């Protein structure tokens, strides 16, 4: 049985494509190996048979008429732009790949709105109770202070204060209602604004808590923050980082350039 390697050598030998040393070595091997010699003979016969295949007469001439030639010479302007399109497509595709890779590899570049929310602490329920108790005992002055604050601050602090408010108490709600804001003289916020406004800042929360009860401690306030924001969590609208925006733009540009390049090439 002739190995594949031997067959490659025989094939190259037949076409006189072996180096002198390899050729001499194979010729020595051929004198000693009758099987190899028979394989060479068969291969030579096969190639000769292929070479002797009848030639087909051309069915017609393939010459071009002057009219055809003229038509072929009139190239579409798009065809002339093919090299430029090809280059632009390559550059755009490369930029798209780089920007996409960067946006994937740098999650820190994500906006805060897309950052995962911290998991609620186990003691959150207890803190809620404490906060509710303290808030319920809050003075009217504290109510006024928290309601008079700007919406961003008041919403955080107002959670606790609102529990003491009549309208909130009557409704039995834990979250501020539009009526609460109306009382303070602010325009009624949309649910989305409420969700954003519901995100408390530590300072504002502490201020509100200390307003409600001057002896509220910071630990209780921190726990309360976590709990207070939990019921109001609504998925924020998807925000894109600048890198992601660039990636989308470059992707669209690349797709357009690919289409133009293809069209130019076809012409």
């Amino acid at each position, binding site marked *: 049985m002739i190995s594949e390697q031997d067959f490659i050598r025989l094939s190259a030998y037949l076409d006189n494509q072996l180096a002198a040393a390899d050729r001499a070595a194979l010729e020595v091997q051929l004198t000693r190996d009758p099987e190899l010699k028979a394989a060479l003979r068969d*291969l*030579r016969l096969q190639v000769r048979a292929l070479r002797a295949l*009848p030639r*087909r*007469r051309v069915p017609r*001439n393939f*010459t071009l*008429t002057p009219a055809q030639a003229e038509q072929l010479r009139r190239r579409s302007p798009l065809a002339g732009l093919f090299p430029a399109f090809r280059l632009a497509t390559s550059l755009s595709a490369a930029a798209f790949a780089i920007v996409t890779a960067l946006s994937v590899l740098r999650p820190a570049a994500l906006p805060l709105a897309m950052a995962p929310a911290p998991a609620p602490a186990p003691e959150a329920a207890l803190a809620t109770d404490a906060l509710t108790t303290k808030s319920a005992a809050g003075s009217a002055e504290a109510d006024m202070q928290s309601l008079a604050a700007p919406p961003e601050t008041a919403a955080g602090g107002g959670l606790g204060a609102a529990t003491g408010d009549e309208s909130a108490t009557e409704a039995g709600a834990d979250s501020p209602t539009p009526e609460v804001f109306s009382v303070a003289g602010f325009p009624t916020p949309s649910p989305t604004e409420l969700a954003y406004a519901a995100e408390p800042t530590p300072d504002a929360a502490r201020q509100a808590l200390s307003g409600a009860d001057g002896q509220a401690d910071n630990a209780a306030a921190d726990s309360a923050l976590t709990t207070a924001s939990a019921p109001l969590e609504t998925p924020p609208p998807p925000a894109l980082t600048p890198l992601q925006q660039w990636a989308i733009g470059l992707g669209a540009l690349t797709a357009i350039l690919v289409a133009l390049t293809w069209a130019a090439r076809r012409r």
Partner: protein
Amino acid sequence: MPRFATDLYDALVSLTPMDEPALIRDAQRGDVNAFNRLVLEYQALAYNVAYRVMGEAEAAEDATQDAFISAYKHIESYRGGSFRGWLMRIVTNACYDELRRRKRRPAVSLEDMLTAPDGTENENGSVLVSADETPEERAQRHQLAEALQRCLDHLPDDMRMVAVLSDVQGLDYAEIATATNVALGTVKSRLSRARARLRDCLQEARELLPSVYRLEDEATT
């Protein structure tokens, strides 16, 4: 101009000596007559390569026509070297395009179904059949040609292309490398694999080989 007149003109033109580099330069300047001289010189080679690769007369004709149109459009990109290799590259690409088209829309013409794959039954077929052949020898050669074409048809496209260019048309490795746009080493290995597959495929027709060619072989070795 009547067809016979153009054929006669083409025949006379093809008999005059050809200065290939000058014709290429003129064709690059847009001279369609110079380009047509080149077409007449190479159309038999181009058509036969296409025919052996495609295995169908109609497909070979389409591929050859496309190849010469493409050659005219791109002749400015020819930068020297073997013009035959450059042209065969265009023919090769045209064949691949035509093969892809035919794979999407397979179609076999009635003519191809009624004639032998090598076309020897057809009036346009063999032009190199010896007049000294006996009817038995001719039948045997016909049978062998059929077997060879059938085995060529079963090769993968890239191997078939190399086998046709090398063993059927006799191009050297460098020209085949140019025509198929691969390295010389790839040509060598691809050709070797194609020949090995053809050898296996031809096992059934093996007994025909010695009776047709053994005497010639023994005379040359």
